[in-house]
């Protein structure tokens, strides 16, 4: 069995304030430390010897960050310790942000979703993660805190590269904010994987907003997952749809554009070429469903 090779100390601060102080202190002492939430990604990285911290700061006990708040004006606020499962089973989210529930059904198994957090998934920065494309499509805002204060960035700017985010070493993601979905808007997400619960070979989230007559597309966001170093907007594909009456033909063209914009790599499961083909098909199908939803919205 692959047990962790290096030893570490394990700390469990009780409040956010205490946690942030601890991070700031270790940072100034140049200690090798990692924050652990559910550990559903981190523990595997340690087993594989990819990460070998000297200490772990567990934030799972910070119950002040375990919440879901919905307000019809302000939208949804998800505390950093909210599990995938809490999101998946929330009636309020099912009613107002159905796409989040659909996305969560795709994340690994119930056991992982019971303990892993949405924020932890996003902080992990895996380009194959399911939440990132959806959060970017929904215009989410990411709130972070350190002893120096709080700041926010759009979800789109949060991930920089493979497993790299804008988070400072002494910073915690504290809240994910999702604005109310605008009127006449439909959002959908699908991934393609070998079996349900596996990481995606390719995924796409599409948000389409129509004008009041529900004819022309006034705004669109097409976000691809697993086919680049981060979740990425397919901006050329978006340009093809913007301002137009969206037809099947136009969706095929948008799919082709997205396929060219994507930047997948060969893996054991599929070649680069195959993944590019998938992107085209996914954008067309997901776009079609988003369009239907926008018409009904």
């Amino acid at each position: 069995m692959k047990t962790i090779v290096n030893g570490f100390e394990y700390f469990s601060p009780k409040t956010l304030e205490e946690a942030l102080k601890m991070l700031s202190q270790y940072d100034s002492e140049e200690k090798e430390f990692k924050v652990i939430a559910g550990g559903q990604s981190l523990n595997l990285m340690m087993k594989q010897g990819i990460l070998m911290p000297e200490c772990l700061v567990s934030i799972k006990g910070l119950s002040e960050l375990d919440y879901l708040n919905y307000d019809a004006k302000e939208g949804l606020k998800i505390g950093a310790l909210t599990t995938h499962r809490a999101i998946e089973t929330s009636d309020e989210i099912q009613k107002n942000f159905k796409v989040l529930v659909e996305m969560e059904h795709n994340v690994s198994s119930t056991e992982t979703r019971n303990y892993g957090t949405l924020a932890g998934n996003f902080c992990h920065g895996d380009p194959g993660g399911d939440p990132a494309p959806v959060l970017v499509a929904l215009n989410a805002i990411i709130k972070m805190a350190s002893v120096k204060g709080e700041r926010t960035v759009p979800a789109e700017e949060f991930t920089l590269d493979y497993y790299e985010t804008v988070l400072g070493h002494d910073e915690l993601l504290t809240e994910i904010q999702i604005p109310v979905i605008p009127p006449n808007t439909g959002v959908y997400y699908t991934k393609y994987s070998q079996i349900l619960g596996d990481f995606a070979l390719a995924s796409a989230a599409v948000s389409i907003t129509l004008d009041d007559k529900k004819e022309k597309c006034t705004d669109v966001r097409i976000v691809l997952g697993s086919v680049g170093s981060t979740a990425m907007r397919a901006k050329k594909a978006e340009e093809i749809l913007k301002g137009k009456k969206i037809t099947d033909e136009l969706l095929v063209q948008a799919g082709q554009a997205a396929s060219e914009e994507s930047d997948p790599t060969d893996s054991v499961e599929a070649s680069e070429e195959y993944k590019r083909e998938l992107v085209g098909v996914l954008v067309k199908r997901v776009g079609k469903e988003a369009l239907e939803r926008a018409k009904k919205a």
Partner: protein
Amino acid sequence: MKQILQFTVNGEPRELLIDPKKFLVEVLREDLGLTGTHWACDTGACCCCTVIMDGKAVKSCSILAMQANGREVTTIEGLADGPNLHPIQQAFIDNWALQCGFCSSGQIMAAKALLDENPSPTREDIQLQMDGHLCRCTGFNMIQEAILDAAERLKGQK
């Protein structure tokens, strides 16, 4: 450096001095001798090692033992009442839902968490919630039958 782990296992409070790099499955099997929790893929991909922590099914190979500090863990050893098997265990036997038995403790613990939360699941509920559990022997039909049967047995008990 070892650290103190205090948690409740199958209703009994436990205090151990452990290396914090140990996973829950290691402490259960090696320190507590509870070898009913099986350990297979070790990468979170098969759900063999599933136990219940604070009412939720979790993978003990993917959780550090220290993450269970202060929590309540139930393993397969905690289900039977003396010589009497738990109705879910009996339903697994009666429905031929196990052959080699390697995946069974994980399946049964996940089924327990599922039935505690939803006493009347549909077959689809079971498929969705148990989809991470791999079985090399039985095919999944008998397992689903066993869980549906267990749900009836548990309702009959009340």
